[in-house]
């Protein structure tokens, strides 16, 4: 009994022995689309250089920027991944919080895919179809001059060539960069096919944004979380649902998922790289230059990310579904990282 109490007292007071004061590992947040790539690079980085593994959270580009810009120092992440550019407003927050030396690396290209289970008939969509299926307010089919609440509940009602399946789409929440890209690349493009909205865009851009980007809230559009793996799981078992995520998730699950074509183009590596697939966008990584003198592995991690064996034409990232950027841009990336190291 006494010995036991003694043991406990010893245990408690020994706890501080194990504590370390400062974070030693790299901390990464941001886009769920980039997450699998970041994890893969992190793994190569850890296993081949013997550095501590980075801690990588999938938070979405928006939340990622929020945490990234919240301050400089070790409580805050060193890197945020993004599937969109940093907005000027976010840059201002960063500056206000002392995050001044940010480097941006364009790591690759990606296509936003609308995927369904293979059990469902294949969707061949136009941007207009997607807009009509998902926007909260759409032009009245009878009278194209006014907007009404979205009346469509099945794909066939939008376009008779589409299958007679209920509309049921899992999409990224506003905290995700994929959502921003989807808004501007798909929803707005789809909306401008209507003269009414084209006019509106010229005359009242704010109202146009509202009309084009506001997603319906009757349960047919579902803001899924920042876990794209989870959406993939849900699609596999849900034959009539459709999911929106990055190309790599499709590539990893080609056995059970198929992509819808947009304006006649399927999301293939070639189509995305050439920009033919309408929903193609670039992926980025933002890092704090200042932190390279506080976190040992930071330059080495970035170096691994831009290296030939990772981002190259036949690199391991490309095998996972990232579309590599042209060799010239890659060289530029390597120089950026090098300049960071030499500092």
């Amino acid at each position: 009994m006494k010995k036991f109490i003694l043991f406990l007292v010893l245990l408690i007071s020994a706890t501080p022995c194990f504590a370390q004061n400062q974070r030693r590992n790299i901390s990464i947040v941001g886009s769920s689309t980039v997450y699998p790539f970041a994890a893969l690079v992190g793994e190569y980085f850890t296993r081949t250089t013997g550095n501590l593994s980075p801690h990588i959270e999938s938070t979405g580009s928006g939340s990622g920027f929020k945490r990234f810009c919240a301050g400089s120092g070790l409580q805050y992440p060193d890197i945020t991944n993004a599937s969109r550019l940093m907005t000027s407003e976010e840059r201002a927050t960063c500056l206000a919080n002392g995050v001044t030396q940010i480097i941006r690396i364009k790591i690759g290209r990606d296509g936003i895919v609308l995927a369904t289970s293979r059990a469902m008939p294949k969707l061949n969509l136009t941007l207009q179809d997607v807009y009509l299926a998902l926007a909260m307010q759409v032009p009245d089919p009878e009278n194209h001059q006014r907007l009404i609440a979205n009346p469509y509940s099945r794909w066939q009602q939008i376009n008779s060539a589409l299958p007679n399946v209920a509309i049921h789409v899992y999409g990224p929440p506003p905290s995700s960069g994929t959502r921003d890209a989807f808004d501007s690349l798909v929803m707005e493009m789809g909306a401008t096919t209507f003269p009414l909205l084209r006019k509106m865009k010229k005359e009242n851009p704010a109202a146009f944004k509202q009309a084009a980007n506001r997603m319906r809230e009757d349960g047919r559009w579902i803001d899924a979380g920042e876990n794209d793996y989870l959406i993939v799981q849900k699609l596999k078992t849900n034959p009539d649902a459709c999911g929106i995520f990055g190309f790599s998730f499709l590539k990893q699950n080609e056995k059970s998922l198929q992509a819808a074509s947009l304006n006649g183009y399927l999301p293939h590596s070639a189509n995305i790289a050439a920009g033919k697939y309408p929903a193609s966008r670039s992926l980025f990584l933002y890092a704090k230059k200042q932190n390279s003198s506080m976190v040992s592995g930071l330059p080495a991690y970035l170096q691994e990310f831009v290296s030939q064996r990772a981002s190259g034409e036949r690199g391991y990232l490309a095998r996972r579904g990232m579309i590599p950027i042209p060799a010239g841009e890659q060289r530029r990336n390597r120089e950026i990282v090098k300049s960071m190291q030499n500092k």
Partner: protein
Amino acid sequence: MEREKMSLLTPSAALRRRYRRDRLFLLAGRLAAVASFSTIGLIFLAILYTSLPAFTQSCIKLPIHFEETAFSNENLDLANYDMLVAQALARVIPGVTDPGEKEELLEMMSPGAAWRLQRMVNSNPKRIGTVQQLWLPASADIDMLRKGKFDRTTPERRRRLSRRQLKWYDQLNAEGRIKRYFNWVFFTAPNSTEAELAGIYGAVKGSLLTMFITLVLSFPLGAGTAIYLQEFAPRNRWTTTINVTISNLAAVPPILYGLLGLAVFINFFHLPRATPLVAGMVLSLMTFPSIIMASRNALAAVPRSVCDAALALGASRMQSITHHILPAAMPGILTGTLLGLAQAFGECAPLLMLGMVAFVGNIPAGITDPATVLPMQIYLWADNSGQGFPEKTAAAIVIMMLFLVIVNTIVLWLRRKFENSHPHTS
């Protein structure tokens, strides 16, 4: 009308009805018991069955030439280990010249093959210049094929292995170069993005560190509180409120503690996210109530006569407690603590909020290194749609259940040992 012969021994219709109802009742009880045990039993059999393939890993035997030209650089880490693997594959399967086909060939191996070569060279540079036949891990797809979980009939466009890869596989298999080994990696490695390299040791270590913090915080504080409340605290409105609060806290959903941890420990005190330190603190808040309640019950169950006798013989209040009541109640307190810890061990809802849903690719060294815990690893893998991950998930569940069965056996043993024997009366 014939008068029926009535005997007290033959049951009347009403009695027969009552007996029938009695039998039905028993049947319902039996069915319920069988149903509840068999459902949960089936779940485990299903999980166990799913997990089996994860305990072995297919390896391919390759003749690796550690040629000196490959190690011209002073820094051994910069050598191209992938090339060593590719050259060895070319030796086994000659005649592949197209770069695309070469890549397909290399994709049959896990990236872990090259990493293993790197480790071997680093640990013993004398290997440079030798030729060795090595069993190196195959990729997850080949692994699945070897385990018979790959459907060759799916159209090539949709399956993950090409026609050529299948041909090469058959060739290697015929030569006896593919074999399944016990998957040590699974028990010694941290998490990985590749199923064939993913292990649970990182998560287990994270769990153990977390449990260490939880034990250190919740046991002394919980037991101390219980002793104070049960033996010393005055009985007044305050203590009644405290008692009610504690019993209420025991029923609070675990996820709320995650919210608390996020608001207080991370956002206010700036403790590092996703570390066993924070996780242990949050989980110990969650286990306090159950430890306090179990300890109070154990203390209350010690016969007062023991205490009275001690007091009558001149012992002080504190002496009667530390010498008599506490030793008698200790098994109860310990079992309560163990059960509380077991619950904390398997809990991951609060940790969802503490940044533990993350990739951590190495084994945490201390309580302030980022880590995940075993149930969180299971959650992460269950979502991962990659090839081979469902099996790993099931295997991780099996390991976690083993831990819990061990804890429960200890609890049972403690209880049986002390069930009817009061250490001071026997």
